[in-house]
């Protein structure tokens, strides 16, 4: 078999195994509790027939292994159970919240990259100068900052003191109604519906949470870009490019091109871990996304919802790691060529 195909199959195998581990973890979460049926139903006083139905559905009178297999089959069918708080299917609730979270993450990654690449490049060119040290110091500070604290600080300054940011009350002003869902992004949907007031409000609501997350993403990414650039700048071909009299812009392009696989892979890894950070920021801004949903479910011990959140987070992380693996593959082909 051809090598790339085999590698891809192996990765798929690893992925399947990991998926099983995640499902098992999610399953054990419920199993660990003393009274599983109560937990599953959630409410403290389940009616007798509801309880019997539940025992029947989940096979709670059967061995743990059978329960696990049944649970796995349910997950594969997309049946994630119902939230005891709302009584609605968890899958539907999560799906409805995914666009909000994706929108937040996407803009944050974009803005974070826009901040990190020029800053990291400048720091690399100014290696070991005061400028470089300042950038590194700020990045480490940004990495160390708890996301909710940064969010609260930004709110304090721009909402409370300067009063130029809107209240942290979700994705659109509370006096406006959300636009008809097309893409799920309030901002883009408002534009499609040609509702400029809604679009402006959606955009204003996005600013602070996106800035918070972008600073978190940007801090880590800046150091990554700087390191990747320095590795390129120490390579003989870069020194030779300088000997040819290339301008700073041309040198940047050459080094950036070589550093791109490293930066892309780092970005993918970082995005995989971003959901956890996003959850905290969503909570502060009452964003109503998947992250906030998961956090609230945990606070209320809404187990079916927590299970759903775990599965969705794991799926997202798995996708980002697949992207990471692909970027690395392309990079390795490049290196073999070099």
């Amino acid at each position, binding site marked *: 078999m051809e090598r790339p195909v085999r590698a891809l199959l192996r990765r798929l195998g690893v992925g399947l195994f990991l998926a099983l581990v995640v499902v098992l973890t999610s399953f054990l979460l419920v199993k660990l509790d003393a009274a599983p049926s109560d937990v599953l139903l959630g409410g403290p006083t389940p009616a007798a027939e509801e309880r019997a139905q539940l025992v029947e559905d989940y096979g709670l009178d059967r061995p743990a292994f059978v329960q696990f297999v049944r649970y796995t089959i349910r997950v594969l069918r997309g049946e994630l159970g119902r939230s005891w708080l709302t009584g609605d299917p968890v899958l539907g609730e999560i799906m409805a919240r995914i666009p909000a979270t994706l929108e937040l993450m996407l803009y944050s990654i974009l803005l974070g990259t826009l901040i990190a690449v020029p800053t990291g490049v400048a720091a690399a060119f100014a290696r070991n100068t005061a400028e470089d040290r300042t950038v590194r110091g700020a990045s480490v500070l940004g990495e160390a900052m708890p996301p909710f604290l940064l969010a609260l600080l930004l709110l304090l300054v721009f909402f409370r003191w300067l009063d130029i940011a809107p209240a942290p009350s979700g994705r659109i002003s509370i006096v406006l109604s959300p636009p008809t869902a097309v893409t799920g992004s309030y901002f883009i949907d408002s534009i499609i519906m040609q509702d400029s007031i809604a679009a402006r409000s959606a955009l204003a609501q996005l600013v602070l949470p996106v800035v918070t997350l972008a600073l978190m993403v940007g801090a880590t990414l800046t150091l990554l870009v700087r390191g990747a650039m320095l590795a390129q700048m120490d390579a003989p071909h870069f020194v*030779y490019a300088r*000997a*040819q*009299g290339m*301008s700073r812009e*041309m040198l940047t392009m050459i080094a950036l*091109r070589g550093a791109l696989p490293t930066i892309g892979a780092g970005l993918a890894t970082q995005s995989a871990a971003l959901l956890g950070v996003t959850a905290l920021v969503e909570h502060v801004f009452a964003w109503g996304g998947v992250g906030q949903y998961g956090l609230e479910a945990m606070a209320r011990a809404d187990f079916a919802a927590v299970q759903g959140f775990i599965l969705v987070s794991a799926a997202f992380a798995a996708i980002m790691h697949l992207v990471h693996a692909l970027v690395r593959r392309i990079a390795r082909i490049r290196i073999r*060529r070099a």
Partner: protein
Amino acid sequence: MLLDVQDLRVERSVTGAQGERGFEPALAGVSFRVVKGRILGLVGEHGAGKSLAASAILGLLRPEARLVGGRALFEGQDLLRMSEADLTRVRGARIGFVVQSGHATLDPNTRVGAQLVRAQSIHRPIVKAEAAWRAETIMSSMGIPEPRLRAQAWPHELTPGIVQRVVIGLALINEPQLLIADEPTAGLDITTQVQILDLLHLEVRRRRIGGIIITRDLGVVAQYCDDIAVMYAGQVVEQGPVGQVFTRPAHPLTRAMIADAPERLALAGRRVGGPVAEPADGCAYRARCPDATDRCLVAPPLVGAGVHAARCHFARIAAA
């Protein structure tokens, strides 16, 4: 006079045993000259400071090294005091640079022909088709067969010999006045080495430009250079026209190197004693010198007559 390097001083950062940072001299006042139409052979053992001198002149010192003093007058302008922007206009345009280890020197992400076109575009506005034609022309005059085909190749697809021809082409494409070749044949097989050196020699002669060949191989100097500067521990210990220096070497190191040449020098390049030992003051070479006396505890002056000079108390130099 094309290039006049005077008293070039460079320090290198070192980390001491206790982790303290400091600087130690790496070039302790290097002087040499390059005249139009002549090739200078900069020769010395590994670590003598030959490549460092070239990097310093071109403003390409690595971050751990720093310039302390000296002048490098190129066409009357001091390269060491030039702004980075002005240096950029000199590098690759008026000074061509050929480096060692050809494969790693070409941009791995750009086709060879495109790199030759880009090298032209750095220094003047170009017409794409004309620049591509010039790229092919220079490839063919560098002795690269089927230049049109090779121009489409990626660097990794070429043999080391061809890569080095491309590197020389890159160095010459903007018709520089000075060509600096830093160990241009390192890592090449013997046959290719001879071809590359023949090519370099021919191009410098044909274009009537100045050349510097940095090498550890005295045989290369004898065959391809007009002048020689022997370096040891960051200093030029002997310099002069190749004929005079080879017939009447005045410095003990030069004598040892000539006695050792050709085979062992060509092979290892690090013969003539052990690692470079640098006494704190006095003659840097005295720890390894067979003729050393108490006089060598004092730093030797440059003893010379005319163009031939050596840094040794006992140098006897006859006027040419």
